[in-house]
């Protein structure tokens, strides 16, 4: 259903002419069930129709950049986990990729594969959350819990991989903290099967359900022109039919060796965004399976003590090890002075990093181009003139994550 249904004809205006009406302004958020994270939307309503939206963020602002500028490059990692906390690994690895590009460092093959696996696992988690929450906030609670159930299974695997389910801190400059657990691939395969099943159920509950379709199709539309203008990337841009995916456009790690497709939509509405996400999950599952098949044995960390902490036994028993260890911990990895803009495909789109180093162990400037920020900035284009209830699915399909928007 589109906004045309609310089209006050001249006769209506005549009827209401003698009534002194004024638009109602309501605050959605910062504490509101549909405002993911804590966003405040000052919504001006004419009846049920949104006349004007003023999005106000900052309630979850954590000073990401300032914090990063005052710690070593390694210490930034826990901060990056908390950007898009649903897909922490993607952020984690994205940041490391940028730092490695700044150093000019090539990481070991196996680490590249594991990074792809981790990033794609978390992409699935992110999309499961987005699609599930879409169901939840439209009222279909079951769909959400099926999505979350699958996500939990994957997070269990992430726990086995990284040691924590949400805030992973798994990557390190030059590779990874540790190798895969030995039985991990089999568990992942099992979880992926279950995920496929559950995601299929979510799809069966939603995709063709007329109520759902009516709620999503034709709502939250953004034109391609506007989407590009606002800097939409990821599924939100692809729902408009623009085939821009960093994994294809500028392949990093091993994406150029993987066989996957990038789903695109056509109309840029909530429904297409939803379908894009559903399809992307399938592609991600495919990629993970390929990675397990092709992954070589070998180290997961570069062997250079100026970058990587020495192996623990070297630290315990040799002066060389303990010195490198101390220097790395005290001063951080000495990233050469320079600047770089590097991007990876985060769950919500292009996750760009503009890093600047002054040659010391601490970043001079860490700018993160969080995809969610730009998408949220265009949200008023998507819902002004629409109904209040359309705000809810729109917020879900853009997968607004407070952490990355407000940094």
């Amino acid at each position: 259903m589109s906004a045309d249904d609310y089209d006050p004809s001249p006769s209506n205006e005549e009827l209401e002419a003698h009534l002194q009406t004024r638009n109602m302004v309501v605050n959605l958020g910062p504490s509101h069930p549909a405002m993911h994270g804590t966003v405040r939307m000052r919504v001006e309503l004419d009846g049920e129709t949104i006349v004007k939206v003023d999005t106000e963020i900052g309630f979850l602002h954590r000073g990401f950049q300032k914090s990063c500028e005052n710690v070593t490059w390694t210490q930034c990692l826990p901060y990056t986990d908390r950007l898009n906390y649903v897909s922490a690994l993607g952020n984690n690895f994205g940041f490391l990729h940028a730092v490695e590009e700044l150093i000019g460092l090539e990481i070991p093959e196996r680490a590249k594969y594991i990074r792809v696996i981790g990033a794609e696992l978390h992409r699935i988690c992110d999309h499961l959350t987005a699609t599930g929450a879409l169901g939840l906030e439209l009222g279909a609670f079951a769909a959400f819990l099926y999505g979350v159930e699958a996500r939990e299974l994957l997070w269990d695997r992430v726990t086995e991989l990284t040691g924590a389910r949400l805030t992973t801190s798994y990557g390190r400059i030059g590779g990874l903290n540790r190798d895969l657990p030995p039985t991990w691939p089999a568990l992942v395969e099992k979880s992926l099967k279950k995920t496929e099943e559950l995601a299929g159920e979510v799809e069966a509950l939603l995709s063709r359900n007329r109520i759902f379709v009516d709620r999503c199709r034709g709502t939250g539309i953004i034109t391609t022109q506007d989407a590009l203008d606002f800097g939409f990337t990821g599924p939100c841009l692809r729902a408009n039919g623009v085939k821009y995916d960093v994994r294809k456009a500028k392949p990093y790690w091993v994406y150029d060796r993987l066989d996957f497709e990038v789903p695109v939509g056509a109309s840029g509405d909530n429904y297409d965004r939803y379908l894009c996400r559903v399809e992307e999950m399938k592609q991600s599952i495919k990629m993970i399976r390929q990675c397990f098949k092709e992954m070589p044995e070998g180290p997961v960390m570069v062997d250079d003590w100026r970058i990587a902490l020495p192996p623990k036994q070297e630290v315990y028993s040799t002066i060389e090890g303990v010195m490198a260890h101390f220097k790395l911990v005290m001063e951080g990895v000495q990233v050469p002075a320079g600047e770089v803009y590097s991007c990876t495909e985060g769950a919500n789109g292009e996750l760009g990093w503009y890093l600047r180093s002054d040659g010391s162990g601490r970043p001079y400037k860490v700018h993160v181009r969080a995809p969610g920020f730009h998408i949220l900035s265009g949200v008023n284009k998507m819902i002004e003139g629409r109904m209040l209830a359309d705000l809810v699915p729109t917020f879900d399909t853009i997968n607004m994550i407070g952490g990355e928007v407000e940094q």
Partner: protein
Amino acid sequence: MRLRWNVIIGSLTIIPGLLFGGVATGYLLGGLADKHLFVGAHHLVNVVLLLLVFVMVIATALTLAERKWSAMMQNRIGPNRARLPFLENSALSGVPHVITDVLKLLTKEAFIPKDASKLLFNLAPMLAFAPVFALFAIVPAGPTVNVFGFDIEMVAANPDFGLLYLFGIASLAVYGTSLAGWSSNNKFALLGGVRASSQMISYEVALGLGLVGMMIAFSTVQLGGPAGMSDLQSHYLPGWSTYLGPIDVGVPQWGFLLQPAGFILFFAAAFAETKRAPFDVPEGESEIIGYFVEYSGMQFGLFMIAEFVEVVVLSGVLIAIFFGGPYLPFGNLWLKSLFGPDWQWLYGSILGTVFWLKVVLLCYLQLAIRWTFPRFRYDQIQTLGWKILLPIGLANVFISGALILWDPSLKALAIAGGIEILVLVALTLTPTPAKSRADAHIGHHGPVDEHGHGADHALPAGHH
């Protein structure tokens, strides 16, 4: 594949047993009342038993069932933390939560916002609760049987304007919600109240139209009594019945068979009246939280319990009108003949139990719908009500009327209904073709510059 036999056996024995005991008590007490007080005194017993015991107990149980059953549908366990003092090792399937809920609601502060209209604010929960509660008065929960020489009706009241009472009282419920929304001095509540009132008023039309077909078919608006809709459904379609040994079988003239469209219409409209998902926009917990956003404690509890009472009442009404009331689809006569004249209350109690079991099943259906379906948008509800349900209802009345005129024995109506049901079933069972709109475009991937596909090629969708 281990099964939980305790649950299976328990649900097969305890629930029917309890229901049976309750109904039997009702009949016997009714008979005693008539015998010792005055004729018709059993209606007083029914008021207490049906409205205060059955409806309230089931509604209260639904507060738990809503959570427990939804958990089952969602691969969860559901509430199981509350324990009774001496049974600390057993969760008792979460039953103690009912008690703790009540305790919590009673002991919480009843908060009244500053600038709220206090009188109306306090009045609204009562206004929301009372009408739904009164609705059940005309729903017959069992056959009329002879106990101790008196005809005992299992209904609180049996006015000859039956359904009109239903419509009348049902439309009163809107006051509670709209007053609650307005008096709270909260914009979200106000939005909810406005949504609720417009929705409830709109759907009364569809609600009425859904039943017109049945009224025409049975030529009555009464529910209970021998000429009421409930009892009429125990009859078979003329000529389409036979005996298998002692058991009578045939095609019963249930409203569901005669009027499937009317049933769906009425069901949908009644759902909208109860404001439950997918029609819960007045509540819309992810959008505006609802008209009762400012309520707390037992005042909120009243809104909540009113909703569950509505669920029970709606099930009762649906069963009385469309699912043969307390009667089985076949074998009613045989069942009646099993019991001697002095034991007719047993026959009544069995059928009463059947009625309540049907109610529980329909309650499950409503809960399943609530937890599975997304919610409509406010304007889509209006569209559905006025642009879809209303024309269908009118067409249904017209076609049904014509069929009844053509064939007063209702057989033609039953055939038409059967066809409708078959079409629906066929459509549901055919496998779903793989579909997603994005599919059409998958494959346009690869390095973007290869395609040279500029962004401006994409559709400027959505701008009509």
